[in-house]
């Protein structure tokens, strides 16, 4: 077959994905940036170019800075806690213990559970008077309606949901470490925690790097659990409201889609910066062989 007709086949095979991607994803991404420079009326029928006015308003908006702070605060709490617990459980599961697959299923269940369903049971568990958590801990905390505790509640639910998937990623990384390295380490006197610190951890850094990047991107987009767990009339909402939640409110509750677009475009920039910084610092701590 000549190369010309091979080309034709290749283009035909990528056409659906390419056209769909441009129409439904690339073009919207570009249009979202364009929207943030407009003021729209009549549900987007009339558009005026207003330049940076939406961004000016955004930067002067105290609520925006609060939402940004909340988003970053959630990320800073959620990512390390998830990483530590996922690594801990992965190391424990990597040791040859009975019923490994049962544990994997148990840890993975939250991952396959619909966030809306999970949020409902957490609302019951966190309930002030009849909640199981206060009952067991003997505490008297209004977990999801107290502005000091709402963020912690969100982090608990987030970590609970994320451990399974991340533990698996780390487990896969652990199983890629050759046995011979541990044998060599044992001869040099590495036991217990030292084995973990000097052999496991360095070799796990590529997996941890990948996990951190993915976790951070996900954490900055937190919306579902705020919408479901905290809810729109909760007094603690301002203390946890994220950028994506503010985007949703502005775009689809107050119908200011231009202001909403400006908010998510900022989120896009934040994500590009965070990922860029991660890749820049990669050399400092990630060990590639």
């Amino acid at each position, binding site marked *: *077959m000549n190369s010309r*007709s091979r*080309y034709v*086949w*290749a283009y*035909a*095979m*990528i056409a*659906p*994905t*390419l056209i*769909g*991607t441009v129409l*439904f*994803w*690339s*073009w*919207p*991404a570009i249009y979202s940036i364009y*929207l943030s420079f407009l003021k729209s009326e009549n*549900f*987007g029928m009339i558009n005026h170019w207003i330049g940076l006015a939406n961004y000016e308003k955004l930067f002067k908006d105290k609520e925006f800075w609060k939402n940004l702070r909340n988003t970053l605060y959630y990320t800073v709490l959620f990512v390390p806690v998830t990483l530590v617990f996922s690594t801990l459980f992965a190391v424990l599961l990597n040791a040859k213990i009975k019923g490994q697959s049962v544990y*994997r299923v148990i840890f*993975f*269940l*939250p991952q*396959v*559970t*619909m*966030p*809306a*369903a999970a949020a*409902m*049971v957490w609302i*019951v*568990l966190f309930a002030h008077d*009849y*909640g*199981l958590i206060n*009952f067991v801990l003997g505490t008297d905390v209004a977990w999801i309606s107290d502005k000091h505790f709402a963020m912690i509640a969100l982090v608990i639910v987030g970590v*609970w949901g994320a*451990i399974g998937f991340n533990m*698996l990623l780390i487990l896969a*990384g652990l199983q890629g470490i050759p046995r011979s390295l541990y044998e060599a380490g044992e001869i040099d006197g590495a036991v217990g925690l030292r084995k973990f610190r000097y052999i496991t951890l360095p070799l796990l850094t590529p997996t941890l790097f*990948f996990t951190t990047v993915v976790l951070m991107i996900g954490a*900055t*987009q937190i*919306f*579902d659990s705020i*919408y*479901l767990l905290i809810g729109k009339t909760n007094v603690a909402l301002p203390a946890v409201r994220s950028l*994506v939640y503010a985007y*949703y409110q502005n775009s*689809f509750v107050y119908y200011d*889609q231009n202001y909403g*677009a400006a908010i*998510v475009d900022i*989120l*896009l920039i934040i*994500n590009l910066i965070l990922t860029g910084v991660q890749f820049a610092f990669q050399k400092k701590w990630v060990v590639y062989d």
Partner: protein
Amino acid sequence: MIIPFGWMILTSFKTVTEATQIPVVIFPAHPDWSSYAKAFEKSDFTHYYLNTAFAALMKTLFPVIFSSMAAYAFARIRFPGRTLLFFIIISVMMVPNPVFYTPQYLLMSKWGLVNTVTALWICSLVSPFATFMLRQFFLGISKELEEAAILDGCNPFQTFRYIMLPLVKSALVAIVIIQLLWSWNELQWPLIINSSPDKLTLSSGLATLVSMFGTNYPVLMAGAIMAVIPMILLFFIFQKRFIEGVAFSAHKG
């Protein structure tokens, strides 16, 4: 880790009073099923189910077919513009999802699709993620079989369909499960695009159950359990493939 699931099940069999009693009641005195029937009777639960299942099917079937074709072409055929076109497709993976929603909403409203079941899946007809992942699988397969097929006069599509596709079956299963799971549980897009009760999905519908049943926790928990059962079954049946698929994506990053 599993306490929330246990509590979900226990609560669904309690009476309304038992669910909110102080001190906490752990086991219901007379377990009863009536909450499950109530969730169906008093809401559009059947609609939620059908909408979710239909949308999830469409969001799985089309992306998997389109992506496997595109992934094969990108991995195995050299053609002008290959790098650029692949870059166009995977570059959207870097963009946070909410960035797409307003323009997609405007597009749907232009096409008159707001508040239709079609709007739930049409924007997800293609998947850059699945394309990327499947390309990795195709790259890992040896060239020899393929060369034999080409010598036998197979065109690239036939080579793909009869030789290569069967070789990545386990990757396809993993992607099907991931797409189904993601579509089944997705919340934000259904919430934005559809608001009439018979067009909601389970995910967005459960949120409205809360406002309907307030603190009738047994009914809410019954609804929640019924919403998660299909995916939990799917997970149990395909557990091994699923976990392999996840582990794989970690290695190839």
